[in-house]
C-alpha cells in the first residue's frame, strides 16, 4: 500500500509486455497495422504480433538504421507501422534515420524503445538507455511518451497507433507496480494527478511514478503533503498541470530514470521558468554510466527508489521554507 492506502502498487506486468499485448489487439482490429523488429522480438514482445500476423511482421535483422527507414517507407505508403528494439539501439543507431526519414518529412511512424533506463540490470551500460527521451524530444514534431504501468502502456500504445504523427514510446524490461485500474482512460499530452497535496509536487514518469507514490506516505508522516503527477507524455508536455502545480505548491521535484540533464526535468523547468517560477529540485541518472547487477541492485545503487524521491522532495520543501 502507498499514498494513504489509495494505491495497492501490486507487481504487474512489465510495460514491454503490455506493449506486446496492445500490438496484438491492434493487429486484430486493424489490418493496416504492421510491425518491424531487429532480432529482439522475443525481448520486445513483438513476437506475439509476429505469431498472430506473420504476413504483417517484418524481421529486419540486426540493422536498426535500415529498420527505421523501412518503417518510414511503409508509413509513407499508408501503413500504421511500428518499429521496435531496445531503446538504446533504435534511438542511437536509428537517430539519423529518425531525423531525416521520419521527423523531417513528418512520417506517421511509431517507434518503441524497450529495456529503457538502468533497470535492465545485468546487461549493463551498453544496453542501458538513459538518453532516449532527450533524443526523441529533439526530433521536431515527435510526440514522446513514457508510461508508468501495464494499464497505461496498453492504452497509450493504442492511442499512439491512431494518433496522426510520429511517436516515440519508452517502455521497460522489469515488472512494475500497477497504478491504474483497467478501464482508466488516458489522453496523449494530458498528465494525471495521482495524489492531492499543496506542499510540494513530484512530477515523474515510467517506473519512478510508483516510487513517488511510496514516497508520499513517508513525506505525509513528516507533515508534508505531496502532489504526484504522472507526466506520461513528455512532448507535448502538459503545461497547464505544471503551471498549476507551481502556483499551488511553490515547489516541484522531478524524478526520472533517465540522464538528468536531458530528460523530463529540464522540460518541466522550462515551463516553470516561462509561466510561474518556483523552487525546483531534480533527480535522475547523473553524469555517468551505471553497471551490471540485478535490476533491484542497480536501482538501489543509483538511487532510483522511493528514498531518493523523498530526499528530493524534502530538499525542495526545505528551500521553500527558508
Amino acid at each position: 500500500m502507498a499514498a494513504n492506502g489509495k494505491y495497492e502498487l501490486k507487481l504487474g506486468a512489465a510495460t514491454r509486455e503490455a506493449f506486446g499485448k496492445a500490438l496484438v489487439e491492434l493487429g486484430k482490429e486493424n489490418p493496416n497495422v504492421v510491425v518491424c523488429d531487429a532480432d529482439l522480438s522475443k525481448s520486445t514482445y513483438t513476437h506475439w504480433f509476429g505469431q498472430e500476423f506473420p504476413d504483417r511482421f517484418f524481421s529486419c535483422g540486426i540493422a536498426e538504421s535500415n529498420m527505421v527507414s523501412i518503417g518510414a517507407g511503409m508509413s509513407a505508403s499508408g501503413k500504421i507501422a511500428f518499429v521496435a528494439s531496445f531503446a538504446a539501439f533504435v534511438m542511437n543507431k536509428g537517430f539519423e534515420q529518425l531525423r531525416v526519414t521520419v521527423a523531417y518529412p513528418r512520417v506517421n511512424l511509431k517507434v518503441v524503445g524497450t529495456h529503457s533506463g538502468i533497470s535492465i540490470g545485468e546487461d549493463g551500460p551498453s544496453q542501458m538507455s538513459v538518453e532516449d527521451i532527450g533524443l526523441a524530444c529533439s526530433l521536431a514534431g515527435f510526440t514522446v511518451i513514457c508510461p508508468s504501468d501495464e494499464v497505461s502502456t496498453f492504452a497509450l500504445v493504442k492511442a499512439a497507433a491512431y494518433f496522426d504523427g510520429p511517436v516515440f514510446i519508452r517502455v521497460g524490461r522489469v515488472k512494475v507496480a500497477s497504478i491504474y485500474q483497467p478501464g482508466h482512460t488516458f489522453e496523449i499530452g494530458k498528465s494525471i494527478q495521482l495524489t492531492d497535496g499543496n506542499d510540494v509536487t513530484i512530477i515523474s514518469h515510467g517506473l519512478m511514478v510508483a516510487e513517488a507514490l511510496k514516497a508520499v506516505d513517508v513525506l505525509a508522516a513528516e507533515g508534508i503533503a505531496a502532489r504526484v503527477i504522472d507526466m506520461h507524455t513528455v512532448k507535448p508536455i502538459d503545461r497547464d498541470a505544471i503551471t498549476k502545480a507551481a502556483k499551488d505548491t511553490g515547489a516541484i521535484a522531478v524524478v526520472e530514470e533517465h540522464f538528468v540533464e536531458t530528460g523530463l526535468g529540464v522540460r518541466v523547468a522550462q515551463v516553470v521558468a516561462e509561466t510561474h517560477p518556483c523552487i525546483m529540485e531534480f533527480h535522475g541518472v547523473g553524469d555517468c554510466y551505471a553497471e551490471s547487477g540485478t535490476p533491484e541492485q542497480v536501482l538501489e545503487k543509483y538511487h532510483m527508489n522511493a528514498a531518493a524521491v523523498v530526499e528530493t522532495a524534502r530538499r525542495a520543501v526545505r528551500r521553500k521554507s527558508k
Partner: protein
Amino acid sequence: MKKTSNVPELQEICRTVRRHIVTMITEAKSGHPGGSLSAVEILTTLFFDVLRHDPANPTWPERDRFILSKGHAAPVLYSVMAECGYTPIETLNTLRTIGSIYQGHPDRRYIPALEASTGSLGVGLSLGLGMAEAARLDKSPTRVFVVLGDGEIQEGQIWESAMYGAFHKLDNIVAILDYNRIQLDGWVKDIMELEPLADKWRAFGWHVIEVDGHDVAKLQGAFADAASTKGKPTILMAHTIKGKGVSFMENNPKFHGMAPTKEELAMALKEIG
C-alpha cells in the same frame, strides 16, 4: 503529360532537361551539376516511359514510387518533374532561394508529389523497401525505383538494405546506380573503391544489369529485364559520365558541387543545343 517510348523524342526531352539543369544551377550560384547531368537519361526514361504515374493524380495509391536517394541531384529531378507537369517550369530558376519549392535537396513539404525527402545519403533504398513491402502486402502492382549515387553506397545502411531486399525476395523494387565514378573529394577509386561492384551486389543476392546509363534504348531494355525478374530485386549498374553533355564538366570532379559562371553557362547551352 504525354508519355512516350520513342527514343528520339526521349532524347529531345533529355536535351531540354540538361538546359534546365545548367541554367537553374547557374542562377542559384550553387548546386550539383555533375551528378545531375549524369542521371538525365535515367530519370527521363523513367518518368516519360517506364513509371506508372499521373501528374494530375499524384496520390493515386497504385502509382509507381520514385526516390532520388542521391538527393543532391535535385536539379535533374525538379527539371523532369516540371516537364511532366508536376511543378511550374517557369520558376525552376528559383532553385535554392528562400521560399522556393525547389529546395536545395528534395523536400516533400514543398513538393508533396515527391515520395521522399532526401539529401542525407544512404537512406533511400531502405525507404523504397518499406514502400515495396507495403505494395506487396496490399497486392498492389506498384513498383519502386530508387536512384543511388556511387559515392552514396559507401554508406553502411545501403548494405543493410541490400541484404533485406534479397532475403525478403522483393522483386518489385529496382535500384539504379548512377555510376559516374566521381564523388565530392575526387575519383571514387581514390576515396573508397567500390569494385568489384557487380560481384558485391550479386553476392548480396541481387539481379545485376550493367548498362550504358546514357543510352535510352538500352535503359528501356534494362528496365524491361528488371520487370521480368522474379524472386529477387534488381540493380541497374548504369555506367555514366559525370557532367555528361557539357565537355568541360565531363569527368571533372570540380563540377560535382560547383555552379557554372554565366560565361560557362553560355558555352554549356551551346553544346547541349
